[in-house]
């Protein structure tokens, strides 16, 4: 994408019918570190890569609990993500208070999307620079939605956002048909394997990722490091062999391959602006 004379204002259309500021906001999402969501009939798993600013700091929180039955994973400007999570928590709790019953996920994402749309149609605002993977469970089953800065939202069986998410998406595309009937354990395993795809050569350790689950009779919660490591151990033990463990390009001890695939967060992490994670 190159600069042009129609990209200064979010309220300026280009002659080809594009709003460049909105598209630039979506670029910000691609710069954030990866977040992945998958769902089955009864469970939703959200996972993300932990990236820390420096060795001295702790990693950014990218997955938030919205309610017992809804969680959200973000990629992009974390500050925007935090503010939107607070909005979602507020909407959810207000609904619970008035109706004594959990807010359905579909209604929540619509409110979120409408909020994002407002920012694409005001000259004094800017679009939110964060993509949200909203996973939740309600009367009509388990759902996974992706809300993007443009104000659009889509429902998915599985999705990945952020840098190097294409690798994860490739993995998920191959396996998504089995997700609907997957067991909880298989779903978690698939999520962690998808995370591994985005690391592209780096050894997968439980400290590098955060995984959260929610399901029927299982309120939203994070998996602890031990449980994650146990799942990793089930497939990281066999580096050369190709099981059904994805593309199996697991070269555990090899030097991290600096694989910047084209448009996907093209330059390495050094060029990531500090406010984006």
């Amino acid at each position, binding site marked *: 994408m190159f600069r042009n004379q129609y990209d200064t204002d979010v309220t300026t259309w280009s002659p080809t019918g594009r709003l460049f500021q909105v598209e630039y906001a979506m670029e910000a999402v691609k710069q954030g570190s990866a977040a992945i969501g998958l769902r089955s009939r009864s469970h939703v798993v959200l996972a993300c890569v932990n990236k820390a600013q420096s060795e001295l700091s702790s990693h950014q929180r990218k997955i938030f609990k919205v309610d017992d039955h809804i969680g959200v994973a973000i990629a992009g400007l974390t500050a925007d993500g935090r503010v939107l999570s607070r909005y979602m928590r507020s909407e959810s709790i207000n609904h619970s208070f008035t109706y004594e*019953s959990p807010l359905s996920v579909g209604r929540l994402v619509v409110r979120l999307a409408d909020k994002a749309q407002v920012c694409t149609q005001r000259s004094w605002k800017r679009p939110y620079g964060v993509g949200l993977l909203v996973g939740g469970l309600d009367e009509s089953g388990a759902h996974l939605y992706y809300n993007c800065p443009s104000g659009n939202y889509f429902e998915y069986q599985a999705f990945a956002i952020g840098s190097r998410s294409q690798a994860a998406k490739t993995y998920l595309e191959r396996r998504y048909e089995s997700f609907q009937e997957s067991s909880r354990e298989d779903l978690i395993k698939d999520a962690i394997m998808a995370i591994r795809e985005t690391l592209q050569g780096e050894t997968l350790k439980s400290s590098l990722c955060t995984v959260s689950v929610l399901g029927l009779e299982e309120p939203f919660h994070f998996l602890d490091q031990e449980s994650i490591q146990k799942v990793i151990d089930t497939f990281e033990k066999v580096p050369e062999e190709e099981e059904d463990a994805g593309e199996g390009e697991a070269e555990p001890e090899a030097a991290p391959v600096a694989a910047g695939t084209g448009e996907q967060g093209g330059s390495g992490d050094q060029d990531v602006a500090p406010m984006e994670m």
Partner: protein
Amino acid sequence: MTFTIQIENGTEVRNAEADSQRTLYPYVTGTSVVAIKYKDGVLMASDMGGSYGSTLRYKNIERMKAIGKHSLLGASGEISDFQEILRYLDELTLNDNMWDDGNSLGPKEVHNYLTRVMYNRRNKFNPLWNTLVLGGVKNGEKYLGMVSMIGVSFEDNHVATGFGNHLARPILRDEWREDLGFEEGVKLLEKCMRVLLYRDRSAINKLQIAKMTEEGVTVSEPYSLKTFWEFKAFTNPTVGAEGSW
């Protein structure tokens, strides 16, 4: 704080204060509503009278209405406030229908919404002068609850409003069972309504019974109860009274 409203030539004379806009007394009122849970769902009964003070002015008022697919609302008290509440609930159900996304308001949600509305109005000293009974069945779960004009809200296996509290509930406490069949349930409600008919001056002999089950909600056509007025105590009320001979 003034408590009177003068209406002359259709305009309010003393209306400088917001007081004149608040509900102070009820005008057209409905009497008791009685409801019970039974084997397949919930049954509710109410008569069709609307009293204007001591005059039984309106005799065709439906005091029970279906809300959405799963619930039924019965009200005693000010009829115009009941109609206002129906309007609020209409907006809610229309919203649900518009979304058409597989989610629908169940009786628990409606009951809680009404509790919030009633309590908030009470806090502003502008109550909706009703006692509401909310019943319904959703996903196999039976629900029966009540909200009063001051926001007191609870659920129970059998509820009654107004005079029903004093005359019907004792009967229900003795004779209600978890596994009442439909006919038994109707008979029990009719027994309560008959007592109310004899003893509540604002009751009329024209009632409806509503049935809520998993299949849906139906309100019966109006009908009357058989009554017997030749009891000796009715024909000769003062025989044996204190101080008589």
